[in-house]
């Protein structure tokens, strides 16, 4: 069920809200109702995968309980994390490994073609973070219902933000949050509307050109290739941040505040800054649960070792996005970008001016997204080649379909995307302003 579908907006969400606010009349606990809503929401995509998700929840609950009850048990932590990574590997990366083995060794192993259970990537990271918190004894009195609602709360179930257990459960346990709150409700509706505009008006319209462009790369001249890369960068941003706005808005209708995930990332002045503003909860997860423990375990951690670690962490982040070499390269590019940024900071005294910093950062991100969107290296390098093919600068494209897609409406939307990304206030700022008022 998509957040911008009629079934979600006009049926599922209103019914869930009614059930939530009238749970006492129905003699049901509010958490139980939200769990049922979450399972229904998930089963809408593919009910056959509900038992798998439930099994993952039950097994992880068992691990978490063990971790909270026993004194520092590294073995349980190790096996619990291994279990989650194995599940992810089986459903997401198994075929990718088999295809690569076939290619490298010239063998012909059969692929399994398992459909990927929706939300598994986010659930894996969220659960791993939670298990580490249990190991660190930051979670006490763990209850099955709390664990369930932490995983299956539908506004953040599919694509995040990645939330922390204590942060969420505190809010679910707060009795005030079970009462109707007009401020939260209005703000929730406002954020859902902002998300809808971002997704339907901006991302989808830019997406029409992006889809056509990527299917017909050979038709693109120098100018259209640059336009394509910019369009995809804005499409991705408005698509994902629009989704997060709708998720945050939906959660607010239930008086739950989700952590912010985007903070005007294209205004970033460096790539380090960018990762503090783009997919913030993923960046925090990578730092807190992969980079930090790893760095801590390294004897005599120095600058070179920490830089190498950054690259490894971003390779993991890249492949986490999807089982393709292009995602891995995307991660590598960002890892190298961060390392370059750190080296620059360490060795340079003068700072670049704001405009130049923003310009370099945005273009770096824009070029890296070519690998994010491309299906394979051939596609990515064709576009990169077009971007520097000056002989095609004055080439005119007479393709009718392209002329139709690139109408005045497209350019107005493209211009709006630029203005909003670089000069507009973002959803978090609107949220803060509204709360203050």
């Amino acid at each position, binding site marked *: 069920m998509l957040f911008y579908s009629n079934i979600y907006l006009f049926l599922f969400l209103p019914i869930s809200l009614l059930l939530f606010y009238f749970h006492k009349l129905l003699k049901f606990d509010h958490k139980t109702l939200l769990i049922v809503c979450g399972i229904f929401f998930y089963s809408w995509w593919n009910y056959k995968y509900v038992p798998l998700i439930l099994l993952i929840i039950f097994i992880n609950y068992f691990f978490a309980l063990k971790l909270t009850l026993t004194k520092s048990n590294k073995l349980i932590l190790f096996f619990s994390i291994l279990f989650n990574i194995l599940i992810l590997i089986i459903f997401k990366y198994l075929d990718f490994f088999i295809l690569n083995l076939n290619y490298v060794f010239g063998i012909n192993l059969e692929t399994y073609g398992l459909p990927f259970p929706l939300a598994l990537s986010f659930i894996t990271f969220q659960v791993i973070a939670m298990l*580490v918190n249990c190991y660190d004894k*930051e979670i006490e009195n763990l209850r099955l219902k709390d664990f369930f609602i932490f995983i299956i709360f539908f506004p953040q179930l599919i694509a995040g933000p990645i939330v922390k257990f204590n942060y969420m459960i505190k809010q679910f346990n707060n009795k005030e949050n079970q009462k109707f709150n007009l401020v939260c409700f209005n703000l929730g509706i406002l954020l859902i509307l902002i998300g809808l505009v971002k997704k339907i008006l901006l991302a989808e319209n830019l997406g029409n050109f992006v889809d056509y462009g990527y299917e017909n790369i050979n038709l693109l001249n120098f100018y259209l290739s640059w336009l394509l890369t910019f369009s995809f960068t804005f499409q991705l941003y408005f698509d994902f941040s629009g989704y997060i706005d709708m998720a945050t808005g939906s959660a607010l209708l239930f008086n739950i505040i989700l952590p912010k995930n985007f903070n005007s990332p294209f205004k970033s002045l460096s790539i*380090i800054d960018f990762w503090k503003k783009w997919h913030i909860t993923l960046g*925090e997860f990578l730092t807190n*649960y992969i*980079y*930090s*423990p790893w760095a*801590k375990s390294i004897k005599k951690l120095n600058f070179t070792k920490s830089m190498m670690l950054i690259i490894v962490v971003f390779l993991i982040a890249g492949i986490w996005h999807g089982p393709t070499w292009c995602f891995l390269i995307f991660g590598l590019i960002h890892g190298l970008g961060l390392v370059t940024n750190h080296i620059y*900071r360490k060795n340079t005294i003068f700072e670049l001016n704001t405009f130049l910093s923003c310009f370099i950062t945005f273009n770096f991100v824009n070029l890296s997204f070519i690998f994010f969107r491309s299906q394979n290296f051939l596609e990515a390098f064709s576009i990169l080649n077009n971007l520097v093919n000056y002989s095609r600068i004055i080439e005119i494209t007479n393709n009718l379909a392209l002329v139709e897609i690139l109408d005045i409406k497209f350019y107005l939307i493209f211009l709006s995307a630029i203005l909003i990304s670089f000069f507009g206030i973002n959803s978090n700022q609107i949220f803060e302003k509204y709360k203050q008022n």
Partner: protein
Amino acid sequence: MNNFNIIKKIIAKNTGIKLKNLLPNSCSADFVKWDSISNIKIMIAIEKEFKKKISTSKMSELDSIKKIENYLNK
């Protein structure tokens, strides 16, 4: 030497920030050099110096001198 001075020295050593620029209410956001990478180095050094374990998720939260002091005083 009190905790504040020890913390200050550790931060200065691991970030390259001058001692005189570190004040009781300084935090990572005040300095470009005090980023997430150097913060981890600071945490490792604090653990060693004060012989107190800092949990994984606490590490990124302890991003100011005040917060580190409060954590150590707990």
